[in-house]
């Protein structure tokens, strides 16, 4: 515990600050300011801690979080600062899975609830919903003991005509043994999305089993003879891989395939792109042109567009041409996951529901071995393995929700909350790199699943504009991917910089109004019943009307873990006005302005972001 710590406003040009006390707990860093507002930061969310040179007011400490929160403390005594710095460094770097928050987190669920929580998402059920197994596709037990591919799940669906020798042969010809398997089956078009890793073709190697495997996939589609093979990498990268004995499919060796590169960059490019984006968006006193050129130079939106363009290509191949598509990149767990999951989201409206989205993430990301642990740096590991691949997926989905405001059952807060917990290590779902690892960690016994908690809180994550009839099952969503449709996701990258957000949230207002409408409908029913009753037997003395208000169904939601409660909950709609300006007029802006004015060159007077503090 350190007192008299200052929390600086990240974008203020005048070092405006809040003074308060800093506490370190086993799991969180907590700052309580003089007006008793709490800022909680989970240690696992800390991406970097930096000590800046000593200043007259104390020792500055900058903490960058994986959820894009950046806090800037000034600790009065250097020794305290040093202590905090060292503690945070230790606490935020974990060497073993067992030390992660999920293993100590106790949400007061009993054992059967815990088990039920893990059973909420059942992938076998999901494949059944798609219509597999069927005449063409079957469950293969080849990987039941993770013998063929360690990073795949146990249950895999393959074409019926693909025998075990073919599977084994094909897996030997594919990087990390990730042979082609079913990811999504479109029952109306009888076409499939399959996924795998790159073939070990080098410059000329062939593998008959692999060729048979692809043929089996294309034959499993009775409505179209040819299939697409999408290599999601830029052509140059794929060609370079050939020198290392890897590479891509030669169209001459495989019958009836149409090969296509789609040019999504690799994890290293994405990591540095995000880094650049954050540098730009974190600049104080940023000009519009610096922002736009920074946005351009970071390439971030270009990458998001590339991912979505690839998904559109995939979805159209299936919906328009009824052709099956095999997707791969290098190892088939980053770009492949992005493209397969987004493609399915465009094709199938189920994935646009709350439950369906959870299923989609479980299927294409968790079960197929997207390396969450490495990519999100859950353990202290190789910094070159870190990459915002999943964040890009969420951002692509957000872009779709912007274009189709009525097509999604969930809202932006849902996406943000999932992003929060991918990094929080509070729940077991995203720990580890693949299913095998998760089983070894006994996550289902030792940790809790995130999904039931999100479902219990579903009200918060529901899109009030959602219209289930917007797109009937299996109608293709066709987004417009012209560049101007892609916007900077302020609510993600500036989630915690409240001064940049609209002061009144139309979204919250609509959401609350929608909730209120449901309540009012209930009230009307009750009132009508009462009136009817009275008309029937007017001599019966009835309860006071007050009862109406006490009858509201109490929320059955489980007690939320601290991380679910953002320290500044969205204001209720009717208080919208109050969120604009507090009663506190003791704003130090006056002196700011005067000091600005006393500068030699009055033409450079710069206004601060937000001009005035708007928070209550």
């Amino acid at each position, binding site marked *: 515990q350190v007192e008299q710590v200052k929390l600086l406003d990240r*974008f203020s040009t005048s070092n405006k600050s809040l003074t308060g006390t800093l506490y370190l707990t086993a799991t969180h860093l907590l700052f309580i300011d003089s007006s008793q507002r709490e800022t909680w930061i989970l240690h696992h969310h800390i991406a970097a801690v930096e000590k800046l040179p000593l200043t007259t007011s104390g020792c500055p400490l900058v903490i960058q979080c994986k959820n894009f929160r950046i806090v800037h403390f000034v600790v009065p005594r250097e020794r305290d600062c040093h202590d905090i710095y060292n503690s945070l460094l230790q606490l935020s770097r974990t060497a073993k899975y067992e030390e992660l928050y999920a293993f100590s987190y106790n949400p007061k669920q009993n054992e059967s609830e815990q088990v039920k929580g893990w059973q909420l998402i059942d992938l076998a059920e999901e494949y059944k919903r798609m219509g597999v197994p069927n005449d063409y596709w079957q469950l293969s037990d080849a990987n039941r003991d993770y013998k063929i591919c360690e990073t795949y799940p146990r249950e895999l669906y393959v074409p019926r005509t693909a025998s075990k020798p073919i599977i084994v042969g094909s897996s030997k010809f594919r990087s990390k043994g990730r042979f082609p398997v079913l990811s999504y089956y479109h029952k109306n078009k009888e076409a499939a999305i399959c996924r795998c890793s790159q073939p070990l073709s080098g410059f000329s190697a062939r593998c008959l089993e692999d060729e048979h495997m692809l043929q089996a996939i294309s034959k499993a589609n009775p409505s179209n003879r040819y299939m697409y093979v999408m290599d999601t990498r830029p052509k140059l990268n794929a060609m370079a891989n050939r020198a290392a004995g890897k590479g891509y499919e030669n169209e001459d060796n495989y019958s009836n395939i149409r090969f296509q590169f789609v040019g999504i960059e690799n994890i290293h490019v994405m990591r540095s792109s995000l880094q650049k984006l954050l540098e730009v968006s974190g600049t104080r006193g*940023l*000009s*519009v*042109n610096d*922002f*736009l*050129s920074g*946005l*351009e130079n970071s*390439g971030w939106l*270009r990458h998001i*567009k590339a991912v979505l363009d690839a998904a559109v290509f995939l979805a159209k191949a299936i919906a328009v041409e009824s052709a099956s598509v095999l997707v791969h990149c290098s190892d088939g767990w980053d770009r492949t996951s992005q493209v397969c999951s987004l493609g399915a989201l465009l094709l199938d409206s189920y994935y646009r529901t709350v439950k369906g989205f959870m299923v989609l993430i479980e299927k294409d990301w968790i079960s197929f071995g997207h390396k969450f642990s490495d990519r999100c740096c859950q353990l202290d590991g190789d910094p070159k393995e870190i990459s915002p691949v999943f964040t890009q997926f969420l951002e692509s989905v957000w872009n779709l929700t912007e*274009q*189709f*405001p*009525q097509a999604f059952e969930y809202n932006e807060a849902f996406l943000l909350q999932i992003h929060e917990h991918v990094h929080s290590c509070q729940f077991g779902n995203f720990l580890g790199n693949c299913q095998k690892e998760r089983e070894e960690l006994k996550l289902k016994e030792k940790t809790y699943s995130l999904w039931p908690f999100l479902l219990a809180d579903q009200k918060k994550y529901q899109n*009030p504009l959602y219209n289930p009839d917007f797109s009937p099952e299996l109608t293709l969503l066709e987004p417009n991917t*012209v*560049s*101007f*449709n892609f*916007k*900077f996701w302020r609510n993600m990258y500036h989630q915690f910089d409240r*001064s*940049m*957000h*609209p*002061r*009144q949230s*139309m979204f919250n*207002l609509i959401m609350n*109004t*929608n909730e*209120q*409408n449901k309540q*009012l*409908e209930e*009230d*009307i029913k009750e*009132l009508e019943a009462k*009136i009817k009753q009275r008309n029937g037997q007017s001599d019966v003395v*009835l309860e006071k*009307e007050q009862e109406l208000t006490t009858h509201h169904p109490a929320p059955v939601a489980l007690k939320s873990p601290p991380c679910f409660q953002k320290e500044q909950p969205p204001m209720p709609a009717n208080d*919208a*006005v109050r969120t*604009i*300006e507090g009663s506190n007029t003791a704003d130090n*802006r006056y002196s700011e*302005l005067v000091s600005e*004015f006393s500068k030699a*060159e*009055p*033409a450079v*007077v710069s*206004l601060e*972001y*937000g*001009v*005035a503090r708007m928070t209550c």
Partner: protein
Amino acid sequence: MEFAELIKTPRADNVVLHCPFHLAVEGTLCLTGHHLIFSSRRQDNAEELWLLHSNIDSIEKRFVGSLGTIVIKCKDLRIIQLDIPGMEECLNIASSIEALSTLDSVTLMYPFFYRPMFEVLEDGWSSFLLEQEFELLSSVTNEWRLSCVNKEFSVCPSYPPVVIVPKSIDDEALRKVALFRHGGRFPVLSYYHKKNGMAMLRSSQPLTGTNGRRCKEDEKLINATLRSGRRGFVIDTRPLAVAQQARAKGGGFEQEVHYPQWRRIHKYIERFNILQESFIKLVEACNDQSHNMDRWLSKLEASNWLTHIKELLTAACLAAQCIDRESASVLVHGSEGTDSTLQVTSLAQIILDPRCRTIRGFEALVVREWLQAGHPFQQRCAQSAYSNSKQKWEAPVFLLFLECVWQIHRQFPCSFEFNEQFLIMLFEHAYASQFGTFLGNNENERAKLKLPQKTMSLWSWVNRPEELSRFQNPLYEANSLVIWPSVAPQSLQLWEGVFLRWNRPSKFLEEAEVERINIIKYNKELQAKVNALRRQLAEMEADEEVQEE
């Protein structure tokens, strides 16, 4: 002149109309004196297009064999294409459109011919008189007076006949001050902040020249707005260097020696051709669907449009901050005081004054701070983003103002009585309209053209209940506070409702908007019903009690 002389081919059949995101339709094209009319031959007549010639910004024609194609680019940024069979017809139609859309006499414009099909409930020409404004003002303060010194437009040709000035300054002094200010635009009251009695004045630059001329009456006038011992701020919308250069041409700025109680801030706001170029570049960028991401972002950046938005909002916030937070009076001016000055004073009022965020209040603001204050609409809005004329006086000054209002609206979606459509409607009518409101460059010209007698006012139409309902914001809840917008680049957005309006399918966005409105409406219905039922129940209970007794 007869319009018929200009129309050689009044009608063409088998014309095909192409609009982006719509299927091509075949139909008949008719030209009248003021309209281009296209109607499909389908019985239901659903496809009918009426386009004002004055809305046409530019026209291009090309031929493939005998099939002519005319591309019409409108001032509201829409682009349509007409395929006209027959080379002669096509040439005739193109030249007619060109002539009719560039008529140079104001009195030939459509507002002089337009006969409204609706009943006028309230004459918009007299809806917003400065006298009414003054009445409101005199209920809170007696420090101001209404001056008729400009009754004959003789003191300042671009000012209205009546203005509000400090009570202690007589008309004689005003005449002297007018000689000391560019174009005679002496400082007048723009806004009075009731909360603390501070005033915002606007004027044009003082004519100090190189030898530092001074005018005692000018100093007295603006000092009259200061509380004793307090300072005021002069916000000059030019950079210091430009203001200094202006002295060589007889202009200048308020020098500290002569205005010791005033602090001068130079807050540069771009003007004229720079804005026009920026506008043209932005529209070009938005209209090209083939740009890859990098190109789009660099084009958006190169247009500088959002920079102008940010600078303008910043200047307006600064003015508002001086008044509300510093409790200081403010004088705003640039050179002529007819463009950037008005942008700043009107936006500051949006921030400060809740009344300006109502429909009527906003209309009053546009009338007071733009029309009466002498913003030269006819010059500025003669052409839009597709023009090739490159006239120095064309500039999207008013559009920038509207977009800034939209940016604030986005950040405070519940604080405005009007919606985005209202702002877009004003943009359209400022550039091409059947109403006379935006004709002329100032009140003097409007009086000479007898616009109030000969044309219909836009406000007469807008303020009818049926029209108003289209422009109301269902989320509106009166908010009496000052609203401070964020001016961070991350908080600003491209105004898609104007710039991408014709460039993308908007069906889903519109449907979502309808759904939003429905949720709000349904809420109101339900609340009314619950209240009615509660009342009914309470009455029944009361009756029972009476019976029991």
